[in-house]
């Protein structure tokens, strides 16, 4: 005879084990980076340019570079992604073409980032002659995160109850007004979740910016969107593998700053999202 209590205990054990296996590495990553990186972080590190072949000084240009690139990517991808999502959920007829487009978008999210990098190089840097620049890098990152933003926005729009749309239309409100006043406000939390995901991805990727914008060493701030910049993920790669004798503290400090920057940008979106979530109760 099987003992149901023992089966349950075994199942519970494996479920817990699986959860711990996920939590522990994440926790360790954070602990190690904070432990090793935090001591390096001081005002000079955050506000100074790199000195002595990046073995001393700060990482300010890379912070600013990543901030510009991520902002640019969101600025480009959020409006376009959102409009595309609205079109696909509210206007596009449910036919073969629409379904192929939706499938293609989902699959685009799985394309390796280095492919986006090469695409950005060919299209923005070479074809449009933007050169290696903030503009090229932002657009490349933007295209990379478009599928994430479209997919999550679509889910958010679809989760708005059909009855809201129906009531609004039955009150003589036009379709666009319904989308504008009822559907979008109720979908904002989900849309922001997609934005957060995209933001984190854009901030952390190295491959897409490698050919399109990132500078190996550029101890000055950009003057326009056609300038190159340093960026945190690439800078981390450079001082970890390309420059000999960089103090471990500086490497972990850079990783810590990248982590903190992503967290900080996420936090802004999370605060906005929770404001909207409070209103949403159905």
């Amino acid at each position, binding site marked *: 005879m099987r003992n149901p209590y023992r089966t349950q205990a075994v199942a519970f054990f494996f479920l817990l084990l699986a959860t711990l296996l996920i939590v522990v590495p994440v926790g360790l990553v954070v602990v190690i980076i904070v432990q090793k990186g935090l001591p390096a972080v001081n005002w000079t590190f955050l506000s100074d340019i790199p000195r002595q072949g990046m073995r001393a000084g700060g990482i300010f240009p890379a912070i600013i570079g990543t901030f510009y690139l991520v902002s640019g990517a969101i600025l480009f991808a959020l409006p376009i992604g959102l409009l595309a999502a609205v079109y696909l959920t509210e206007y596009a007829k449910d036919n073969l073409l629409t379904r192929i487009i939706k499938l293609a978008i989902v699959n685009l999210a799985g394309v390796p980032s280095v492919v986006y990098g090469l695409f950005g190089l060919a299209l923005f840097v070479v074809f449009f002659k933007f050169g290696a620049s903030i503009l090229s890098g932002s657009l490349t990152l933007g295209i990379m995160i478009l599928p994430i933003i479209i997919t999550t926005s679509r889910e958010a729009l679809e989760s708005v109850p059909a009855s809201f749309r*129906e*009531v609004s*239309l*039955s*009150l*003589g*409100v036009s379709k666009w007004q319904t989308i504008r006043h009822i559907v979008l406000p109720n979908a904002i939390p989900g849309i922001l979740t997609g934005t957060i995901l995209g933001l984190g991805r854009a901030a952390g990727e190295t491959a897409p910016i490698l050919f399109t914008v990132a500078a190996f060493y550029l101890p000055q701030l950009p003057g326009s969107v056609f300038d190159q910049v340093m960026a945190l993920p690439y800078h981390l790669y450079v001082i970890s593998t390309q420059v000999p004798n960089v103090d471990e503290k500086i490497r972990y400090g850079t990783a810590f700053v990248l982590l903190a920057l992503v967290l900080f940008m996420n936090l802004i979106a999370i605060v906005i999202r929770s404001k909207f979530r409070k*209103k949403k*109760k159905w």
Partner: protein
Amino acid sequence: MSEIVTKNLNLWYGPFHALKDVNASFEKHRITAIIGPSGCGKSTLLRVFNRMNDFVDGVRMTGEVVIDGANILTGRMDLVALRKKVGMVFQRPNPFPLSVYENIVFGERIHSGAMSRSALDAVVEQSLKSVLLWDELKDKLNSSALSLSLEQKQRLCVARLIAVKPEVLLMDEPCSTLDPQATARIEELMRELKSDYSIIIVTHNMQQAARVSDDTGFMLLGELIEFGKTTEIFTAPKDRRTEEYITGRYG
């Protein structure tokens, strides 16, 4: 005076013939009930009047539905204008997840653009008064509409509709989620509203139709079997099927 006249109205959902040659005249400032077993097409008929069936894929209509002298089934019909004139109360109370106040001014705000606060306040007061909710809710205008009771929510939905100043109120089983007391009060409200609006109510509750309506139409399998004064339909039905249905032997 007729509010809505249908002439040889037919409707198909794809291959399914949902309404068959419906000819009826719905009178102004009266309550008309449409009764019949589930799936007989009564809700479909109701949704023809504000063209809400348009959102169903594969829907096709022939015949005429005349409101204010215009056939509303033509492609040229301005649906926004039509739906302002012919409003709908749904089966489930469905206020927006907004405050009581914002729910009521929702349509008015979009239709009239920028309005002064006092004009909006007046709309809210008037609409709530006409659904007999003003005394209950005048101090709770900024609380969420979702915190109200089911009956209050349904009244609020009527108020939200009235704020758009329609002529016709279509009610699709408006009491089906309410308890008997709340149902009685909604029926009372319908009688109050009759002097200002033409009301068409779909109900599967024959007692409700008998209690509240002036005219009744009985539908079966997409056909309008019998249409006339409620008292006549319920006391001396002309068609055997009507009689069987209202005496409980059918459906």
